[in-house]
């Protein structure tokens, strides 16, 4: 069992500026990392003998909605701000847990994929891509998963998403 601070210090010495900071909160403190280095950090967490984070419990994309919000014709449009991905990891051997977070700008949301480190990340990343438009670099098969393959009206879980009026030329009835 290692505490968050110990884990943070281990990662900080190994990856230096790519591990940004430890955010302390009463429940589930998390470590903010560099989005383009997250695959290497993950590989280290998985393969290091003393860490062995072999189980990716959950991977969730989040729209932080911290940009400038300006209502245009009643629809809130967000400029700037970030999208984030949270990784909840666990070691089935040592029973310690850690939460990682990466932030990426809204205009060019790119995060390195961890699908080849933990195969369970494959579908989770496809879901985050599908619903939030986060691009996972080097993902083996980045397609939409829950929405139709020909969906063109954007990414539903973004805070500034507006329902489309037409779908394939048909009026949407609401």
């Amino acid at each position, binding site marked *: 069992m290692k505490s968050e601070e110990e884990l943070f210090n281990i990662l900080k010495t190994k990856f230096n500026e790519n591990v940004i900071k430890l955010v302390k*909160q*009463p*429940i*589930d403190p*998390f470590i903010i990392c560099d989005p383009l280095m997250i695959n290497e950090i993950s590989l280290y967490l998985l393969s290091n003998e003393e860490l062995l984070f*072999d*189980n*990716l*419990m*959950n991977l*969730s*994309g*989040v*729209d932080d909605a911290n940009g400038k919000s300006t209502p245009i014709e009643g629809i809130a449009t967000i400029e700037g701000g970030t999208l984030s991905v*949270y990784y*909840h990891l666990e070691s*089935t051997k040592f*029973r310690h847990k850690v*939460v990682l977070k990466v932030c990426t700008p809204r205009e060019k949301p790119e995060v390195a994929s961890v699908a080849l480190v*933990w*195969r*369970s990340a*494959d*579908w*989770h990343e496809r879901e985050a891509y599908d*619903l939030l438009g986060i691009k996972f670099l080097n993902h083996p098969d980045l397609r*939409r*998963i*829950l*929405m*139709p393959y020909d969906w063109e009206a954007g990414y*539903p*879980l973004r805070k500034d*998403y507006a329902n489309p009026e037409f779908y394939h030329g048909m009026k949407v009835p609401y």
Partner: protein
Amino acid sequence: MAIKTEEMVLNMGPQHPSTHGVLRLELVLEGEIIQKVIPHIGYLHRCFEKHCEAMTYPQVIPYTDRMDYLAAMGNEFGYAITVEKLLGIQLPERVEYIRVIMGELQRIASHLVAIGTYGADIGAMTPFLFAFRDREVILNLFEITCGARMLYNYIWVGGLSHDLHPDFVRLTREFIKYFRPKIVEMNELLSTNRIFIERTANVGVLPLETAINFGITGPMLRGSGFKWDLRRDDTYSVYNKFDFDIPVGEGKVGTVGDCWDRYYVRILEMGESLKIIEQALDQLPEGDVTSAIPKRIKPPVGSVYKRVENPRGELGYFIISNGTTSPFRVKVRAPSFVNLGIMDVLCKNHMVADVIAILGSVDIVLGEVDR
């Protein structure tokens, strides 16, 4: 003349009785051997997570029912304890015990469907009818408790919607007495059936390391021989007060981690659930089940990930609160969603007919896969 071979693509579903819902599997075949399985999901997608952002915390509960509709109590349970952790409230003992009883009854009901439909998929119709007959008794118990048979809205944040019916304890004890011999009957009827064993033993073997890397949980992971149960390994509610075993796959009729092992773990788990219910009924304390329900749920700013052992595996809720009365983001880690991702690995180099045996042993609920 040279013989030319080429791959064939076969679509299984979306309308197919053994896909347990609307799931399309794209099978790439060479002759009758599976080269690749590509699952296409999303036919039941209704964006539960987006809905939550427009609801207050208590309003989300009926929506959680509709994810894994065969284990609705488990979904409510998970959501309630996640929000309670965010709020930091303590519950009366009675609430915790009733939740455990409901959760375990639901586990039996859900496993009965899994076992029954698994038999039906493979061609044994009788166990299906037997399983549904017994599940009916559990649904009647739920009905006298909260009025609903499938989608309960019973476990609320901070408590329960109703106290138990005066007859509940007696009827549940009767059910336990009634159900124990039925498990033996099911073993005679299906588990040891020669045809059933031929169809499931040594089929779709899942090695443990692959299972963990793919994030597989629940009876599937235990079928591969790993003693991992969140009720014990990341305990929640009052599960640490009960004595129960964690059954694992042993490869009794084939290899460890085959379809039969996954099936048999479910049978054994029903017996363990009966044990838990029995102990919980014995210790059931008195008290008021609605006293701790907060008038207004407004958690402090923060994020939390909490998970429970649902019949299908680890059900996790990741909730971010921004200090208002509705959640800022809810992400559900649905066990079926993650477990389905391994289909390609399990089916490789098997026959087409084995896909049905393997899919049945994964035991998915599409309402939860697509959310």
